[in-house]
C-alpha cells in the first residue's frame, strides 16, 4: 500500500499546476501514460521509480546539497565584492577594485554550476517525488514564477557587473557600476528568500494546515511567511558570507601556493587574509542567528525542538562542537602564523599560548555530551545517564559559557594581529587600553558568573536559558565598544614596518583549506539537522513520508553522504578555479607594483589593514 499512494488533483488544480510548474508539469505529462491523461482527473503517483543504486532519498539529498553549496557561494561572494569595490572607490585604492573584480570572476562559472544543480534538483523532485512536488507547486506557484524571473535578472545583472567593469571604471559611471553590484545582491537575496519559503514550509507549515487540507485551500502568504522562514533567511545570509569568505580564502591559498612571483604571492596572501577575515568575522555572529532559529523552532513545535536538541539528533551537536572547535583553532592559528610577517607583532606572540589554552578548554567543554547513550551496565556504573564528573559540563549553560569565551579569545587574537606593527602615539592611549581591558574583564566575569549561577538549584531551566542572552550581549557590546576604541587608539599610529605580504609559510595556506572544507562540511551537517528534524514527514505533520527512505538515518550514514557532497563540490570548484586560471590575464600582473595602502583606505575598511604592501619585501 505504501508505495502505491495516490494524490488526486482536480482539473482546475491541474490547470494551475500546468501554468505554474512549467518544467515539472511538462515532464510529468510526458511521463504519464496517455490513458491517465485522457481521464477527467489525473492520478499523480506519490513517488516515482526508486533511483538506481543510491536510492531516491540520497539522490535528492546530493542534488539539493551541492546546489545549495554553490548557491551559498554565489550569494555570499557578491556581498563582500561590493564592499571591496566601495572601499576601492572611497579610498581611491585600485587594488580593492581589482580584488572585487577577481571575487566576481569566480562567480561567473559558479553561477552556471548553481543553475545546473538546481535543474538536477528540480528534475529529481519531479521524477522521484512527483506527489510532494505537485503539492508544493500548487501552493507556491506564484513564487516559483517570480523566482525564475528574478534568477534571470540576477544572472544578467552579474554579466553586466563583470563585463562592464572596465567600461564603467571611473567617475559617475563607476558609481553606476557599484549600483549594479548592489542590485545583484538584492536580486540574489530575494531569490534566496523565496526558495527558503518552500523548504521552511516543509518544516513548519501553518497551524491551520492539516493532513486533510487540500493544497488549494492553503493561503499563499500564510505558507510563505511561515514560522521558521525569517530565522532561516537571517541565518543563511550570515552563513553565506562565512562560506563565501572561506571558499575565497581557499582559492587565494591555492593561488599563493602556486604563485610564480613575489607580487602574485603578496596579492594572494592578502586575498586569503581578507577571505579568512570575512569568514571568521561573520562566523562570530552566526551563533546568535542560530539561537534565534532554534528558539523559533521550539516556539513552533516543542517536539521538533526536543528532537533536534535532545532526541535522536542530540549527538549531532557534539560533532558540530568538534567542527567549530576546528574552525576556531584553524582561524586563530592562521592569525598567529600571520603575525610572523608583521614587524612588531612578535611582542604579542607569547600571549598566543594562553589563548590556545582557553580555546582548547572551550572546545573540550563544548564537545562534552550531556546524555550518554549507554548499556544498562554502563548506566549503573555511571549512576545514571549523566557522567558523574563530565555530565555537568554537558549542559547548555556550560557550553554557552565556553563558546562565548572562545569568541572573546578570537576577537582578542584579531585585535593583537591588527595592532602588530602599530606604534601607538595617541596621547590617551593608557586610558583607552585600560577601558578596553576593563571591557574584556567585565565581559569575562559576566559570562562566567551567569554560567556558574545557572547551576544553582534555585534557577529553573527557563531562567537558565535566558542567561545566554546576557552572556551574548556582554560579548557583543565588548566587541563593538573595544573595536571603536581601537580605531581611535590607532589613529595616527606610527609603524614598526610594513606588513610583509607573501611571507607566510605554506602551512598557513593549508590551514585556509582546512577552514574551507570544515565550513562546507558544517553546512552539510546543519542542513541534515534542519531537514532531519522533520523525521518521517515530507511536510511536518501534514504529509507523511511513506517512501522506502522514510526513516531518518543515523549520523554515521549522514556523514558519509555529506562527505561525498563536499567532495563533489570541491572537485567542481577546483575545476572552476582551473577554468578561471585559464582565462586569467593575471590581475596582479596587470596591476601596478604593490604599494602601501592609504590611511583612508584602511579607515574605510573599519580599521583593518586589508591591503598588501610590498614595501620592504626581501
Amino acid at each position, binding site marked *: 500500500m505504501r508505495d502505491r499512494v495516490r494524490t488526486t488533483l482536480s482539473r482546475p488544480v491541474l490547470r494551475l499546476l500546468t501554468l505554474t510548474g512549467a518544467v515539472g508539469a511538462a515532464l510529468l505529462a510526458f511521463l504519464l501514460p496517455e490513458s491517465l491523461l485522457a481521464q477527467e482527473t489525473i492520478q499523480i503517483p506519490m513517488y516515482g521509480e526508486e533511483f538506481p543504486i543510491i536510492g531516491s532519498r540520497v539522490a535528492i539529498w546530493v542534488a539539493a546539497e551541492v546546489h545549495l553549496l554553490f548557491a551559498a557561494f554565489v550569494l555570499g561572494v557578491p556581498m563582500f565584492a561590493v564592499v571591496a569595490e566601495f572601499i576601492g572607490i572611497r579610498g581611491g585604492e585600485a587594488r580593492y577594485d581589482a580584488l572585487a573584480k577577481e571575487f566576481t570572476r569566480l562567480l561567473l562559472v559558479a553561477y552556471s554550476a548553481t543553475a545546473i544543480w538546481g535543474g538536477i534538483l528540480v528534475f529529481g523532485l519531479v521524477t522521484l517525488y512527483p506527489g510532494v512536488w505537485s503539492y508544493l507547486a500548487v501552493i507556491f506557484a506564484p513564487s516559483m514564477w517570480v523566482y525564475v524571473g528574478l534568477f534571470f535578472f540576477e544572472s544578467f545583472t552579474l554579466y553586466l557587473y563583470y563585463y562592464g567593469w572596465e567600461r564603467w571604471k571611473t567617475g559617475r559611471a563607476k558609481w553606476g557600476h557599484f549600483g549594479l553590484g548592489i542590485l545583484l545582491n538584492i536580486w540574489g537575496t530575494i531569490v534566496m528568500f523565496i526558495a527558503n519559503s518552500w523548504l521552511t514550509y516543509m518544516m513548519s507549515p501553518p497551524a491551520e*494546515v492539516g493532513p486533510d487540507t487540500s493544497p488549494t485551500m492553503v493561503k499563499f502568504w500564510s505558507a510563505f511567511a511561515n514560522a521558521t522562514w525569517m530565522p532561516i533567511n537571517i541565518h543563511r545570509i550570515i552563513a553565506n558570507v562565512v562560506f563565501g569568505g572561506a571558499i575565497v580564502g581557499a582559492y587565494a591559498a591555492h593561488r*599563493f601556493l602556486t604563485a610564480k612571483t613575489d607580487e602574485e604571492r603578496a596579492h594572494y596572501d592578502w586575498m586569503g587574509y581578507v577571505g579568512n577575515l570575512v569568514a571568521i568575522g561573520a562566523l562570530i555572529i552566526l551563533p546568535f542567528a542560530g539561537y534565534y532559529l532554534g528558539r523559533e523552532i521550539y516556539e513552533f513545535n516543542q517536539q521538533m525542538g526536543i528532537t533536534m536538541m535532545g532526541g535522536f539528533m542530540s549527538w549531532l551537536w*557534539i560533532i558540530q562542537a568538534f567542527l567549530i572547535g576546528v574552525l576556531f583553532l584553524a582561524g586563530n592559528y592562521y592569525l598567529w602564523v600571520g603575525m610572523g610577517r608583521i614587524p612588531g607583532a612578535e611582542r604579542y606572540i607569547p600571549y598566543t599560548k594562553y589563548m590556545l589554552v582557553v580555546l582548547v578548554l572551550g572546545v573540550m567543554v563544548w564537545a562534552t555530551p550531556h546524555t550518554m547513550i549507554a548499556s544498562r551496565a554502563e548506566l549503573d556504573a555511571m549512576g545514571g545517564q549523566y557522567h558523574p564528573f563530565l555530565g555537568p559540563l554537558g549542559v547548555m549553560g556550560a557550553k554557552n559559557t565556553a563558546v562565548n569565551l572562545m569568541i572573546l579569545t578570537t576577537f582578542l587574537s584579531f585585535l593583537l594581529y591588527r595592532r602588530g606593527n602599530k606604534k601607538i602615539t595617541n596621547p590617551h592611549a593608557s586610558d583607552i587600553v585600560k577601558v578596553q581591558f576593563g571591557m574584556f574583564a567585565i565581559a569575562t566575569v559576566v559570562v562566567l558568573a551567569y554560567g556558574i549561577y545557572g547551576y544553582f538549584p534555585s534557577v529553573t531551566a527557563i531562567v537558565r536559558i535566558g542567561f545566554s542572552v546576557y552572556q551574548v550581549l556582554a560579548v557583543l557590546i565588548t566587541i563593538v565598544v573595544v573595536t571603536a576604541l581601537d580605531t581611535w587608539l590607532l589613529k595616527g599610529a606610527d609603524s614598526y614596518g610594513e606588513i610583509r605580504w*607573501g611571507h607566510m609559510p605554506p602551512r598557513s595556506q593549508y590551514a585556509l583549506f582546512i577552514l574551507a572544507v570544515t565550513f562546507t*562540511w558544517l553546512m552539510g551537517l546543519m542542513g541534515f539537522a534542519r531537514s532531519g528534524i522533520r523525521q518521517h514527514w515530507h511536510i511536518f505533520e501534514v504529509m507523511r*513520508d511513506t517512501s522506502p527512505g522514510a526513516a531518518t538515518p543515523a549520523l*554515521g550514514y549522514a*556523514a558519509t553522504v555529506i562527505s561525498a557532497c563536499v567532495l563533489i563540490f570541491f572537485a567542481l570548484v577546483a575545476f572552476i578555479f582551473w577554468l578561471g586560471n585559464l582565462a586569467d590575464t593575471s590581475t596582479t600582473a596587470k596591476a601596478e607594483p604593490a604599494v602601501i595602502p592609504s590611511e583612508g583606505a584602511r579607515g574605510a575598511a573599519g580599521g583593518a589593514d586589508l591591503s598588501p604592501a610590498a614595501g620592504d619585501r626581501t
Partner: protein
Amino acid sequence: MSDPSGGGSNVMVNVKIVGIVIGTLGLYTWVANAIPQVESQVPQELTFTGEVTTGELVAAGEDLFLGAGGCTACHGLGERAPNLRTGDQSGSTIGVRCAARVQGEDCKTYLYNSMTNPNSYVVEGWDPIMPDMRVLLSETQIWALVAYLQDQGGEVTVTGTDIEATGGGEDTGAAASAPAGGAPAQTVAAAGGDDPLALLQNNQCLLCHMLDGEGMQIGPSFDGIGARRDADYIRESILDPAADADPAFQAFVGLMPLTFGSTFSASQLEVIVQYLADRQ
C-alpha cells in the same frame, strides 16, 4: 626573494591539497561514525485484530516507546516530562500510579486519554508540550503503547476489543493508509463529519464552553457568541487560543488544546466557525 613559500611544483601542491581535503573529510566521517548511531525510525504498522494477545501488544508498545514513537525523548530522562518507567515522588511506576491519576478514570482510560488529549492531562509541574499522538500514530499503535505502560507495574487490560472499538485493526495504521501524508487518525480525532454540533460534542468542546445552557463556563459561552465576535476571531481562537483571549477567561486559556489546527480538517473548521458565528 624568489620563493619564500618553499613550495615545490604545482603538482606536489595539488597533491597535498587533495590529501588535506580528503584527510579532513575522512576524519569528520570517522568521528561521526565513531559516536553512538541512532536512527529515527518510522513507526511500524500494526495489523492486530481482536485476537491479539497481551504479550503481542506489550512487545509492540515497548518497541514504539523505546524507538519510533519518540516517547523517551521526553519521558526517558524525567527532565521534560514524567519518567514513566521509574518511580515519581510517590515511588511508583506508571502502571501502578495510572489508576489513581484522575478520579473516575481507570488506568486504561487515563493512559489512552493522556495520549489523545494530552493538554487536558498535564501533570502538575510540567509544561503542556505533548502532542496529540493520533497525529503521529494509529489507534492500534496507541493501544499498544497503553498496554506497554500498563505493564510497567500494573495489570494489562487492553484487548483487541479496544482496538476494534476505536477503529483500529488491520491496515489502519496511520502510516499505512496515509494519502499525501494524511493520518487516518484524523478522521477519528475529528469524528462528527461536517455536523458542527457533533464536532463540538465529540471533541469535548462543551466540557469548557456552554451551548444551549449545557456545558461549563471555563471558557467563553458559545451562546450568542456570534453577536460578540466575528468569524475571523472565532477561527483564530480555535487555532491559537492565546492570541487574543477574552480577558475574563485569561487564567484558563492554557487549558484549551493547541491541536485543533491539526485535529479538524479545513472544511470541518469552517463548519464550526460558521456555526458559532451564526449563533447571534
